[in-house]
């Protein structure tokens, strides 16, 4: 968590955030056009550099992909999906990072007050001061983004460069992208850009082009243009949502449990008031 100046809209395990609601902050978003991504990984390097993340060993799995999945100290990973679509080989690249959901499953699952916050501009961030490293956020995330750092015992993920965003700069990955497939601005602007690009793609023959802004999590602050309307080809969930288990747990089981606990205490007091202690009749001889 790098920002000290942004207002907090929502905070984990807390009744409300710290937002005064006075400042007007637009929701920010990152635009990713997978159709113009060339897989150069400049964004990966820029992310590591700006966020002072150390160099991480890469792994060779028979593809250009740097490593199999995101890591606690590697927050931006280009996924290289070699796949056949309509009988043609396709090399589908996709930028994997925190999606900054409007309804973050990580925040819903987090038990530590203030360990995951959502700023007024929509950025979802982990606060290592409060993080207890339980990993619930990883269970709550439909995109498998938060990763546990074994050395620090904390969770870590993309911050959408909140320290840059709060002073009006674009994220490091966007700054580094050479093809313009990344862009940054208000959510509305990025969605408009995405719709325009989808239309271009459709005109160019990609009839199934789509803008990936999944509503199951309230929309995301990373909007992704896909040539094919099959997100799973890009290793994206087709219909992501906060897992039902997390919802049932937080919204049903836990409140019922708290109520049951207090009711039992009240019942004990009520019982004592009405029936009192169970004591032997006093006239029964001790000599028995």
């Amino acid at each position: 968590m790098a920002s000290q100046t942004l207002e907090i809209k929502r905070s984990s395990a807390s009744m409300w955030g710290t937002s005064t609601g006075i400042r007007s902050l637009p929701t920010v978003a990152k635009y990713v056009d997978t159709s113009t991504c060339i897989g150069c990984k400049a964004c990966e390097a820029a992310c590591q550099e700006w966020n002072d993340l150390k160099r991480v060993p890469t792994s060779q799995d028979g593809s250009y992909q740097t490593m199999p999945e995101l890591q606690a100290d590697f927050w931006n990973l280009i996924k290289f999906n070699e796949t056949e679509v309509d009988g043609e080989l396709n090399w589908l690249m996709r930028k994997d990072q925190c999606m900054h959901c409007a309804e973050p499953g990580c925040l819903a699952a987090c038990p530590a007050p203030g360990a995951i916050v959502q700023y007024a501009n929509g950025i979802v961030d982990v606060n290592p001061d409060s993080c207890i490293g339980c990993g619930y956020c990883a269970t709550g995330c439909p995109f498998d983004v938060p990763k546990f750092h074994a050395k620090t015992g904390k969770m870590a993920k993309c911050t959408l460069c909140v320290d840059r965003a709060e002073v009006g700069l674009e994220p490091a990955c966007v700054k580094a992208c050479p093809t313009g497939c990344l862009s940054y601005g208000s959510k509305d602007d990025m969605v408009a850009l995405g719709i325009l690009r989808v239309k271009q793609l459709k005109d160019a023959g990609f009839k199934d082009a789509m803008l990936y802004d999944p509503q199951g999590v309230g929309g995301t602050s990373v909007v992704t243009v896909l040539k094919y309307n099959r997100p799973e080809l890009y290793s994206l969930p087709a219909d992501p949502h906060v897992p039902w288990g997390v919802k049932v747990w937080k919204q049903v089981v836990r409140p019922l449990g708290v109520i049951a606990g207090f009711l039992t205490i009240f019942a004990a007091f009520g019982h004592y008031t009405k029936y009192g202690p169970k004591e032997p009749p006093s006239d029964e001889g001790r000599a028995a």
Partner: protein
Amino acid sequence: MTTVNDAQPAVITARHNDNVVVGDEIVRHRRATRLMHWCVALTFFIALFSGMPIWSPLFAWMAALVGGMNVARIIHPYAGSLFFIASVVQFFHWLADMRFRDDEKGAWKPSRLMAYMRWEENPSDDQGKFNPGQKVFFFSVCLGALGLLVSGIIMWFPLYFPPLVRELGILLHDITFIFFLVGIITHIYLGTAAEPGTFRSMTRGTVSRRWARLHHPGWFRDVTNKKE
């Protein structure tokens, strides 16, 4: 019935013998039993105070008792593991005493339970050393400890389990704990305020004859070896 030397105080006898009469007192739980019970209770409470602040921010203040949320997260699985080990010892220690008698079947029906809670005397009740409610509680705790262990291991090492298993683990842990919470509050209430004289059986180890005749007439008859 063990013959004991009435010359030494009951509390000394209670170190090694139970179910014996010493003067006005009857030894209910010998020292080993009491130690075991308090091991279970202590590990339970450490796990409780480190687990509840993680469960709900409503109990965040409990984290202060164990040194903060980070400490709570670290010690909770260890306290829970010790609680399970203590529970296993307890299971085998008490299993023989906790077998249901034939005439106790159905004694935990809600109607019978309510009658018990109204302190109504049921002539057919002839409680032995442990009444049916205590036996049900015993087996519930053992089963609950197992449920907490299995789900707790999943939550301790979440990265080794697929998301669905983790979700189910969290739910199982929560639901089991809620039953535990209700049960333990009832257990503490009945063992202290509601039934005076009971708590002493877990500290000093002894109960009065009157207590034994009221709460466990069958056991009282056995240990005094005479019909009331």
